[in-house]
């Protein structure tokens, strides 16, 4: 039993390390509607997510 559980754990960790998937990451995803590029090439947007205080 432990052979399988241990193997699964190892494979899981290997998967996280190689894919970069972060199961505990707390980032949010969204699509920005009003994406613009400023005069110096910077991308400027006002949409998306705004958290914080």
């Amino acid at each position, binding site marked *: 039993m*432990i*052979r399988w*559980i*241990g*193997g699964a*754990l*190892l494979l*899981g*960790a*290997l998967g*996280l*390390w*190689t*894919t*970069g*998937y*972060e*199961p*505990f*990451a*707390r*980032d*949010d*995803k*969204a*699509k*920005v*509607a009003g*994406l613009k590029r*400023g005069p*110096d*090439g*910077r*991308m*400027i*947007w006002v*949409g*998306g*997510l*705004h*958290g*914080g*205080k």
Partner: protein
Amino acid sequence: MHAKGGGSRREEGTAEIGVERPQVVQEGGCPSCGAPVQFTVGTARIKVCEFCQTVVARQGEELYATGKLSALAETATPFSIGLEGRHDGVRFRFVGHLQKDYDDGVWDEWYLAFEDGRFGWLSESEGSLHLMFSRGQHPLERRHFRPGHETRYAGRRVVVEEIRQAQLISAEGELPEDLQREMTIAADATGPGGVFLTFDFGTGEDAPEVFMGRRVELKDLGIPPDALRDAKPKKVRLQGARCTQCNGTLDLKAPDRLKRVACPYCGALLEARGERLAFLNGLPQPDHPLRIPLHSKGRLGDVTWTVIGWMQRSCTVDGIRYPWDEYLLWSPNEGFSFLMDSNGHWTHLLPVPAGEVRVHVESAAYYQGRRYKAFQHVEAITENVRGEFYWRVRAGEKAEATEYIAPPYSINADANAREVTYTHGTYYAPEDIARAFRLKTALPEPTGVAPSQPNPHHAGMVRDLRWIMVYAVAAIFLFVFISANAARQTVYEQEYSLRVPPPPGQTYFSQPFEIPRSGNVQIRFQIRDLQNEWVGVQLDLVDAQGDVRSVYKEMTYYSGHSTDGSWSEGSRTYTTHLSRMQPGTYSLRLVPYYDRLTTTRTLRVTVVSDVPRPLYLVLVLLALGAMAAYTIMRRASFETGRWYESNLVDHG
């Protein structure tokens, strides 16, 4: 041991078996009956007249009578006077014969003259043969000898197995010294490597003559089989014996060795006296059917055993009676052994010489390189018996029983005032016993934990720990390898001034930057001089398609002094990770939140691509550790149950 003295004296110039000493008379007439008496062995001082049983002694040129003996008792000995054999390449001849009555019956002891001038004694006891040679007298005191007593002799550790009293019954042939007709006392001891010793005190209290040798098999004596006596009188006469009380057929399996038999039908306890059985007393009916019927045959190890006896024994601890059953097993080649049934747990016990076992009293025993931990010491009482026994078994018989364990094995010592018996036990599951004896009904399921029961979780624990170790090492190796080959590329690094007071709508946009490969992203926030303040940071990463990933991090750092000393909480550096991001061009938008900064602070933001996290290694190791703890605890829990029953450990 036997007729005392002179047993090992070498005769100078002897070339053949038994050479006459020239200075003493070699032959003459029996002082009693006049029959010819001839001495053939130089060391012989007496000879028993074969016609009238007179003990004829010689001194110088004189022959004189020292008494008369009764006729020899009929025993199962295969030997006879004049028989020749060869041991370790040396020829020998049987020249004298003693018969002694011990507590457990008649034993035969033979005086042997070897071709190389040595003289030895071959004793027959309980079907075992011991060949010994005198080592002379030694300054030892009998009061120090008791069963189980450990002492040293000739640089060897030896253990006293039995203290026995014996009285001469009869003799024949030539013997080294006049016979002791009084009750004599001897102590038998064994040592490592099969060493066997007899300390023969005779009628004295000290300075025993010591005989040392070892156990031998009949085949080791080099006697042609056709020269051996075919004497099985008891067997012939007792084989078809019937119970004197109920006339039931006893069907004895080992009549040669029989001392007592308990009738399986009526419970009459009978004693073998010569060729007949004498009633002693009645025994109660067993309180449960025998799990293995008498006369069943079963194969344990490489030996086929026959069940010839059953005993119910018990001990009482803290007022509670703990009964168990013991079956006496017999094999023509291996002798006797015991099969114990305690709460459905089965242990096969084979006798071992006491000298092979080294005991640290109530601590541990050592046998054949294995340590056996002391488990229990009780007074065992034999309550009931059925079947045949090679000792004078009786209800109420008591013994000090000590058990030492190294599951699935055990060493068991049974001691009384007269002898100590060591047995080596091997644990068997009920289904193994049922299969071995081909029982038609299943044996009861075991209850509780037996002292020598193998821990069912031990093998699993060893296997699990091995796998856990393999996975732990593999996880560490993988992390080191992946970490060493990770990009860990800083794709963006910028410092931002957090002014006081914060300008309204303070928002920063970065120049576009490249994330070159897919993988996670680590974002590090650092304010080196943050002090008793907090800052919240909203950070968004957006790619050219407008897909945004947002995180919010609040940074706090407070410190001070109290009566307990200085303290701090929070950190000046915070790190967060974004899950797997595709390669491409990204821009960063940063919105800081704060209200009470003392002065302008500098926020450094660093974005690093492809950072394998040690967190997952830690989690894997923790999970493996938890599994290791579980498997260890499971095994330990079983051991706790086992040792809870021990009366030799402190249960706190």
